[in-house]
């Protein structure tokens, strides 16, 4: 890379950094809901408080180094001075006060923003069950009987209650613009609540590395008006295929959304997205309990494992 190239890239990059001009709706710095907004506020507040302790360092380092440089004969030199009661109190006291203030804040916000709590809303809550697969997300709508891959649609100003697990290795579910992330682990259920203030499309992703398709494990979280949501549900019922035990076994193979589309013959959909008009049985709980019922899960029955073979897995299930 030549110097000229660098000099061409640098100013542009700095400008980008300062204006924060990136894809909108992908980050909690451009929040789409109350949780992300509160998290952004928290970030700025911590920044402000810690500056009380940090700015003196930034200012003092050059001042002290210049003032007490070796050649400066005018500066005082006290080689044996090594304690001062006032300084001690300040040095311990100021950081302590800041940490106490931030701790009180931390205690309050950690409880207020606890992801297991439903969010305040006038509309009835929506339940969605999330299953992490290698390298895509499966969303089950238990009350609507539909399911999707890599597309999480929900009405605005509605508290969406997400129950999460995986049918493979551990993953971490994040829609940055709406709420923080939560782990999804096999045989365990975690919970997260999200709410969007206005219609929009927000990027969701897995942040816990889980193999070669990891960077592709992204989805769109789409907040829409109640009417649009109803239309969307109708559309899923119309263009989706049934999610049966057999098609789930194919879906659960290690594949990106695009590969899964090809596997299940759903190439017509949006990139990486699949729709399922019906769901056979209580899929979420059968996935969850598969690992808890004391039966061994051999690699042939373990999605994501080397040697996963759904055909033989049918018998062991």
């Amino acid at each position, binding site marked *: 890379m030549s110097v000229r190239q660098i000099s061409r890239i640098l100013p542009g990059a700095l400008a980008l950094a300062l204006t924060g001009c990136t894809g909108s709706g992908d980050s909690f710095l451009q929040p789409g809901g109350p949780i992300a907004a509160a998290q952004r506020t928290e970030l700025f507040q911590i920044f402000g408080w810690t500056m009380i302790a940090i700015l003196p360092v930034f200012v003092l380092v050059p001042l002290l180094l210049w003032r007490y440089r070796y050649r400066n004969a005018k500066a005082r030199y006290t080689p044996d001075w090594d304690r001062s009661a006032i300084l001690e109190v300040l040095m311990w006291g100021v950081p302590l006060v800041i940490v106490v203030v931030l701790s009180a804040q931390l205690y309050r916000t950690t409880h207020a923003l606890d992801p297991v709590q439903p969010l305040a809303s006038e509309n009835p809550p929506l339940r969605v069950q999330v299953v992490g697969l290698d390298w895509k997300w499966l969303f089950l709508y238990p009350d609507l009987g539909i399911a999707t891959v890599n597309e999480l649609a929900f009405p605005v100003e509605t508290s969406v209650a997400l129950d999460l697990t995986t049918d493979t290795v551990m993953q971490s579910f994040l829609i940055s613009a709406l709420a923080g992330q939560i782990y999804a682990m096999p045989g365990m259920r975690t919970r997260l609540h999200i709410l969007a203030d206005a219609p929009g499309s927000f990027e969701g992703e897995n942040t816990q590395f889980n193999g070669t398709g990891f960077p592709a494990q992204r989805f769109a979280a789409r907040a829409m008006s109640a009417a649009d949501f109803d239309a969307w549900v109708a559309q899923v019922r119309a263009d989706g295929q049934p999610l049966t035990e057999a098609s789930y076994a194919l879906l659960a193979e290690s594949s990106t959304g695009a590969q899964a589309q090809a596997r299940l013959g759903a190439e017509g959909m949006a990139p990486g997205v699949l729709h399922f008009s019906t769901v056979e049985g209580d899929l979420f709980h059968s996935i969850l309990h598969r690992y*808890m*019922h*004391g039966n061994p899960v051999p690699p042939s029955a373990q999605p994501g494992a080397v040697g996963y073979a759904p055909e033989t897995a049918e018998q062991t299930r």
Partner: protein
Amino acid sequence: MSGSNLHPGLNLGARHGSAHEGAETVVFGFWIFLMSDLVIFGLVFASYLTVANPLGMAGGPGPADAFDLRSIFVQTMILLTSSLTFGFATLALRHEKGRTVIAGWLGVTLLLGLAFLTLELRDFAHMIEVGAVPQRSGFWSAFWGLVPLHGLHVALGCLWIAVMLAQMALLGLVPVVKTRLLRLGLFWHFLDLIWVAIFSIVYLGGLMP
């Protein structure tokens, strides 16, 4: 370091000369090693406790199906007695009763240690028979991670006793041999202590209704 701050319980009496100086450093170092080893046991205990529940047992056999408390009690008695006999060996060392007496008590300790291991292996064989194997469940994995780890320590202790018997015969009671016997004593009593915890937490705790 001066002689004023020697640990009376650890160091050999005043007549042992240069063994004192050596003991100061190596015995202290060995205590620290034991602390580190204790952390290992503590963590394995903690892991065991997190899976000592129906979820961890995953529908497999539980403690009541596999533990034989009578055999465990006998093992406990044997191990506690071996600590006593090692204590006699330490006293004999301290009061300079001669190589034969020390070796005699060490020999008894070694036999007790081997008896303990034999009984423990017999118990393990029984557990394998009833399907209480580590491949069965997280609970049995943790059990087989914990109790045989102690057994491995006892086996190493037995090997160490054998080595010390050989060294006493070949080298005599030179200072390094004395300080090694001191450390071996610490190790042996430490294993006893761990066993008391295993007996109480794993066996008694596991069989409590």
